[in-house]
């Protein structure tokens, strides 16, 4: 199963959340690949805590691969190469977790037919090797988005299941932008149809993840005044209405990640240790990530009985 992680804007928590989803699935025993197609600003090395390993791959990342300079992109075994002490002790019964980094300093680039063929080669190879492939895409209607839309519409990919996650923050601007990314004339659906996708099935393969959502019930806000609580409540309601009007209402939401202070400070994986032992992360955050990770392959959340 391929999962494409997209967002209209930066700073939506797309990379950090999708990396956490990959991590959660690997913990349950799946073999997981995390493919960094965020060509503008690759952050995966920081999230998985593998900066040292990534430094060795400057010329062998995904750009170089797609441009045909190398035959195979570098891969980093996260359990083995992470500098995160907890991750290094690979949990028993976990699956593989492998990062495919972008090149350091590589920007967005126009893709031609050869790059598209190589992209398809890569996705097919990973599909034969991994249970789940999370592809982190540059923000907005980027070349990366175009490339994977074209790849998944290609006849060679006809039997490879894929799903899209669109990440957005829970504000007016972000709700409107996320809807635009998917539904506007040249959005993901429109762009996909231009490349040969069936509109209905593409639409059915897209779900939204609301990230960094403040929960009015959370103890974080319990010190606030009743007036603040009422104001937050009404904002939340208004945003729900707005989301529904923009066709990204609750029925197409795969999950909600609560506002998590430590993710505001540092993009990282949330481990059980962070919640139970050091208690720097909230239990609700970990539970939300576990639940979204589970729903990725639960067909009942994708409109299929």
């Amino acid at each position, binding site marked *: 199963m391929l999962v494409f992680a997209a967002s209209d804007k930066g700073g939506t928590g797309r990379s950090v959340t999708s990396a956490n989803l990959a991590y959660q699935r690997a913990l349950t025993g799946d073999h997981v690949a995390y493919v960094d197609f965020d060509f503008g600003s690759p952050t995966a090395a920081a999230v998985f805590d593998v900066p040292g390993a990534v430094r060795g791959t400057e010329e062998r990342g995904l750009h170089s691969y797609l441009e045909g300079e190398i035959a195979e992109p570098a891969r980093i*075994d996260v359990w083995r190469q992470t500098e995160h002490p907890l991750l290094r002790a690979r949990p028993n019964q976990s699956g593989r977790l492998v990062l495919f980094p972008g090149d350091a300093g590589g920007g967005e680039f126009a893709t031609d037919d050869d790059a598209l063929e190589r992209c398809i*080669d890569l996705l097919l190879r990973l599909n034969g090797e991994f249970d789940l492939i999370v592809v982190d895409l540059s923000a907005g209607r980027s070349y990366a988005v175009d490339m994977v839309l074209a790849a998944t519409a290609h006849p060679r990919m006809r039997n490879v299941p894929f799903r899209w996650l669109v990440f957005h923050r829970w504000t007016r601007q972000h709700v409107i932008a996320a809807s635009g990314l998917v539904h506007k004339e040249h959005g993901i659906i429109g762009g996909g149809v231009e490349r040969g996708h069936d509109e209905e099935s593409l639409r059915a393969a897209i779900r939204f993840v609301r990230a960094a959502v403040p929960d009015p019930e959370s103890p974080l806000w319990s010190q606030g005044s009743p007036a603040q609580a009422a104001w937050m409540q009404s904002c939340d309601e208004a945003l729900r209405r707005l989301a529904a009007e923009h066709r990204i209402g609750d029925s197409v939401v795969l999950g909600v990640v609560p506002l998590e202070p430590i993710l505001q400070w540092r993009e990282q994986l949330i481990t059980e240790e962070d919640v139970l032992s050091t208690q720097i992360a909230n239990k609700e955050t970990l539970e939300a990530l576990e639940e979204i990770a589970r729903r990725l392959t639960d067909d009942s959340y994708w409109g299929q009985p």
Partner: protein
Amino acid sequence: MRALEDAGSAPHAVLACGEVRTCLLPARQALDVRAAAQLLGLRADERVLLSERPNLYARSPDTLTGVDCPLPSANGAHVRAVGTVAARAALTEGRVLQTSAYFRLPAAGPDRRRPWGHYLVRPGTVEPFGKLPHEAVAQGVLDGGRHGELDVGLIAGGLLTRLLRHPLLDQRPPLRSRPTRLRWVALPAEGGEGPSIERFTLAEDELRTVRLRVPEGTPAADAAGLCDDLALHDWLLTTVVRLLDGIRLGSEPPSARVGPGTQDPPAVVRALRPAVDHLLHLWMPRARVAKELAPLWEALEERPGFTRQWQALVQRIRDQLTLHAIPTLYREVEPAP
């Protein structure tokens, strides 16, 4: 190939090198003979070799890649070499796809480049400029060369990529597996001795290296054939070991348990079934190894004991499946306190 070597004026090879890529064919059903021939028909002028005994096997004709570049070497010696690398693809039981690229090197070559015609009548031979430091080059090949040096793996990989794009393949592999690479070198055996495996290492997750000694005059294609066979069986072992690693034994959590009225088999059976359907019948060491090199397998059977490990794995799979044929009531007995 052999005839050419016997008749040709080229001196005897002092080194043969190659790399084999092995992977599961990404198709729901194994290919039958006809489809295999279609997949492997790399050249219009030569037919695909097909054989049905002792197992179904198809091999493409050799393709040649012209090269003119430095050879990798362990001591940094700069040796330019020109010639052709041979590459071919093989499909075993319509299920396991291999591409194999290899070449032979004579002890010395001319100091300047000859016209291409000279190299074309010596397919699969790469000639060094001057004398060949064959030990250093052998080690250099096994260590993996630097960018720009002759990389036989790149040629094997390129052929594999080309084959995997074939429209015959529906890209629905029946199980998750990882491709492997096996790099090999064959040096001449000391005066009159038989062939031997000097070293067989599991270098990285997917990389194996093999260092052989073969009697003088052993065709490079025969050494490549032996290494294809080693790579195939090493891949089978690796793949089945990983398959068994991935299953959780014992009782399943209630959510995954078979509910009344559902026909879903338990997770262990679902995980092991593809091995039974697609892999267990493929074990057949030496099926196509040249007679002179077949004794090398005996060393591997002794240590580490390839077939012994395989039989233990097969037995484990069968035991698991038998266990799951017993009604749940009797199978999941809680241990006494």
